[in-house]
């Protein structure tokens, strides 16, 4: 595939999103990250790459006013239905980066948290002879678990490459390690696990080894995704990314999450994405 071929289109889920008061099943630290498991009534199911908008802390008797806005978070895993019927177990990974996520970290089992989802368009999961190279950094790791599972299920060879500062930043690593049929490669900047360096190095090695029919899926900080996209483009390999722009609504009305397109104009990350063919993004215009 070369740069002139049609972009890889993200996939529209056929289920409508819901707004729900989810019940906290568990909320525990995992390294420097947190894992939040929610029991979500009437959950319509999601496809890999979709996200939810999560209230910035547990619900109280009064409407939430401060912090006001919900936070977009990738759906890490979903299992369901639960015994209590009509409820799914939806798991999210997050980091405490500000007041909203600090409030979320203080929530305990039984608390109610408002969520809206599933939202956005997901990854196209297709059989193929070449390897699927999934690159994750930061909370971007959360987008890769269900994707890896779906790719394995359709017969793809799957390598997951995780990049982080150090071992405690690799939230979710054990789950990915436990996935059958997935090769897990880690890279840490402090050398505590795997390659000593950035995740782009093992990605380049994988592409040098076997680029024929490969697809790169990159989710993480913008500079990481941009490097992955450039490596892939240099090798003539398609690259799909999932953007993490701030947004207020998640369903196409606040227009806050606009990402500049190479072809000009903007795409809304929440509606046209968050999954995009990397060639559609004007990286230099992303903050």
């Amino acid at each position: 595939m070369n740069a002139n071929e049609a972009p890889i289109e993200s996939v529209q889920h056929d289920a409508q999103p819901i707004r729900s008061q989810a019940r906290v099943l568990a909320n525990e630290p995992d390294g420097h990250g947190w894992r939040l498991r929610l029991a979500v009534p009437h959950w319509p199911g999601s496809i890999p790459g979709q996200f939810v908008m999560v209230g910035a802390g547990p619900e109280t008797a009064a409407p939430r006013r401060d912090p006001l806005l919900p936070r977009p978070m990738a759906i890490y895993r979903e299992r369901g239905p639960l015994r209590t019927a009509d409820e799914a177990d939806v798991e999210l990974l997050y980091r405490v980066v500000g007041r909203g996520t600090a409030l979320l970290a203080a929530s305990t089992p039984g608390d109610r948290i408002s969520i809206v989802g599933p939202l956005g368009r997901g990854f196209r999961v297709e059989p193929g002879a070449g390897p699927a190279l999934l690159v994750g950094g930061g909370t971007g790791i959360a987008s890769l678990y269900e994707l890896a599972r779906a790719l394995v299920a359709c017969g793809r060879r799957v390598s997951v490459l995780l990049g982080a500062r150090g071992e405690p930043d690799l939230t979710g690593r054990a789950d990915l390690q436990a996935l059958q049929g997935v090769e897990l490669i880690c890279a840490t900047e402090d050398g505590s696990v795997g390659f000593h360096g950035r995740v782009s190095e093992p990605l380049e090695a994988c592409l040098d080894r076997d680029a024929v029919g490969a697809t790169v899926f990159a989710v993480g900080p913008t500079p990481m995704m941009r490097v992955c996209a450039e490596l892939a483009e240099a090798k003539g390999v398609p690259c799909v990314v999932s953007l993490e722009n701030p947004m207020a609504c998640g369903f196409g009305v606040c227009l806050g999450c606009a990402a500049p397109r190479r072809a000009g104009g903007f795409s809304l990350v929440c509606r046209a994405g968050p999954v995009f063919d990397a060639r559609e993004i004007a990286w230099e215009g992303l903050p």
Partner: protein
Amino acid sequence: MSAESGSALEVDESVELAGIPLRNAVLTASGTFGYGTEFAPFLDLEKIGGFVAKSLTLEPRFGNPPPRIGETPSGMLNAISIENVGVRAFLEEKVPALPEGAVVIASAFGTAPEQYAELVGQVSEHPRIAGVEINASCPHVKAGGIEFGQDPRLLAELVSTVRAATRGPLLVKLSPNVTGIAEMAKVCEAEGADGLSLINAVQAMEVDVESRRPVLSNVLGGLSGPAIRPIALRMVWQASRAVKIPVCGIGGITDADDAVKFLLCGASAVQVGTTNYLDPGAAERIAHGLADYARRHGFDRVRDLTGALETGGSSSLGG
């Protein structure tokens, strides 16, 4: 009429705004509700009073580069800059996709009075458009908006030009970024507006100390959400006392109590804005809550709440 009559009381929820009959007093605000269809999974458009669609320009328009939004205490800051599909796509694609009973108010934006007039002329002819709200107050487009809403002469010229282009219901959405809101309200009334919507976002800015940069690419933006509600309430109070045309209250409404406050201060209806982002079903919930409030307090018509503020013994409220 007494509080004790309780749940048996049948409450008349209907109100009228600028000559538009509404099934209830809760609408949604322009720029926070897309073109309506985005909310279909979350609420019934036929159960809210109506909605004001995203502001339109004659041609489709892209907005500002990111970052376009930021969070502030009990509020958010935005500088989108009237990104919209243009009036033609709105009438041909967006409006026909709406359920029949949805009450649609179009919002018009332009950089010259003649542009507003042309646009208003086009939309107000459409049988599905119940009325038009002119956005005279967008606080972050350098070439337009703010100048009309901040200068009484420009505002008068704008309203009279648009008035000549339509006989349909005409609302003017006012900017809060003025010294005297009553004067602006009177100007609109004198030039033939049928109603006023207020307030639009409050001009504001925020800074990121790590990068030492403004949070928004546009530097300045509009503050919305609960943070501005007391400012909005004050302005609705002052404007509604200055004019006879109906006022639609906007600014940080998150629940039915907030809506009641605006009605008591003189609003005939309200628009829910930023809350739609975090709770896309909010407007329907607030409409139910408003009827409940009326029932609990012995009002058999919601419209009787308008201006029913008790001010006896208080001197600090005077405008």
